[in-house]
């Protein structure tokens, strides 16, 4: 499937120069909440990608029919319905995953990335580019979540995906899991560090003083 340069930019932009978390600064709440372990971070990333992509498509297909006065409400209804459907399907066919994510699936509705992309992109573009934009933003969100989840689980619990990584000998020598990593503010600091590294690599993103 050949993508034109413009469409490629739509898909790949959010992975780097237009990343939802580190550039658009959206979706921070869930980036803090689900990343204390790697597995929920992964599942959340997939769920957000799916919901963003499909809500983008639906709103894009409806964009010429939505009355301007209720457009935010319509967007909200679409997102909430999709999230509820995802939640119901998870409960029926992937019960263990649903138990892992518990309340956080419902909180996808409050994830600013979704409304942000609907307003900024889906209302003004066709269904296929909107779908790619949704996938791109979901993946951009996802890789940040995976990085933070990786660091927090490794340093905070000494495990990855539940498997112990830090050898017992380290613990016996006096090493202790970093309890601070298990708390949300640490995730925020980690995002700050990632933004720092990212901006130093992409000078054009640095805000002028």
């Amino acid at each position, binding site marked *: 499937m050949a993508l034109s340069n413009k469409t490629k930019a739509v898909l790949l932009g959010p992975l780097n120069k237009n990343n939802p978390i580190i550039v658009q600064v959206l979706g921070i709440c869930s980036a803090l909440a689900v990343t204390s372990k790697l597995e929920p971070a992964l599942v959340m990333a997939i769920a957000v990608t799916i919901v963003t992509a499909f809500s983008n498509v639906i709103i894009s297909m409806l964009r010429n029919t939505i*009355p*301007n006065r*209720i457009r935010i409400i319509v967007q909200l209804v679409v997102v909430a319905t999709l999230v509820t*459907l995802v939640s119901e399907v998870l409960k*029926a066919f992937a019960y263990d995953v649903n138990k892992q994510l518990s309340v956080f699936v419902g909180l996808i509705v409050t994830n600013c990335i979704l409304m942000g992309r609907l307003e900024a992109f889906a209302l003004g573009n066709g269904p296929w580019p909107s779908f790619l934009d949704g996938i791109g933003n979901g993946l951009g969100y996802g890789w940040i979540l995976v990085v933070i989840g990786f660091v927090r689980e490794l340093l905070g619990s000494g495990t990855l995906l539940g498997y112990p990584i830090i050898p017992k000998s380290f613990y016996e020598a006096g090493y202790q899991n970093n309890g601070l990593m298990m708390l949300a503010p640490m995730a925020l600091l980690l995002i700050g560090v990632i933004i720092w590294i990212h901006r130093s690599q992409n000078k054009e993103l640095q805000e002028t003083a």
Partner: protein
Amino acid sequence: MNRENNVYTILYASIMVIIVAVALAFTHQSLSEQQTKNVNIDKMQQILRSLHINASTNEAESKYNELIKNSYLVTPQGEKVEGSEGTKTSDPAFATDIAVDASKGLPVFEAEIEGRTIYILPMSGKGLWGPIWGYIAIESDGSTVYGADFSHQGETPGLGAEIATPQFGGQFGGKHLFRDNTFTSIAVVKPGQSVSDRDYVDGISGGTITSKGVNAMLLESVGQYKNFLMNLNAAKK
């Protein structure tokens, strides 16, 4: 038709709401049977885990039916409730959720392991962010714990959520709920500390409130079965 027209706006909103309501109702309706099945299988897995058996979703139901020989309700006085016996998911013992309604009686599940009868009791309590619950499997002397399994709804991963790990639940094997014929329950203490008046296990480091919740649950929720357990204890002697 003009998009900003009032009539159009109201019509649009109404139709959208109706379509969404139908879609959600339909989805829920068609999936609810599968969902209930999943909830039941999950409950069976929890009960089996308290017996040190990790059953996969496929084998949970058959393993449960193989090991659970009887289940019924008991009154707080420890007497079996007439007509409450039955091991099906629709029977009183399995269907009762003690967190919601324990007025008809308290569920007890009887399993046969290695020729012995093990009694499994549900527990319900409060964690930091939401409910916690579990199942405790007790030997026929009414005091020695065979195993325990804990679950939670939204405790912090890596902290309070650790109560669901075998490392935590595994500590309960061999502990006693009674000391000198009095129900003392089992204490959950800060790791490194100890108590002398009853059996204890280590809590979760960093998960103080959840650990305290488990402590309270063992005292109060299991405490409801005090008389039932004392009768077992007396019968053993």
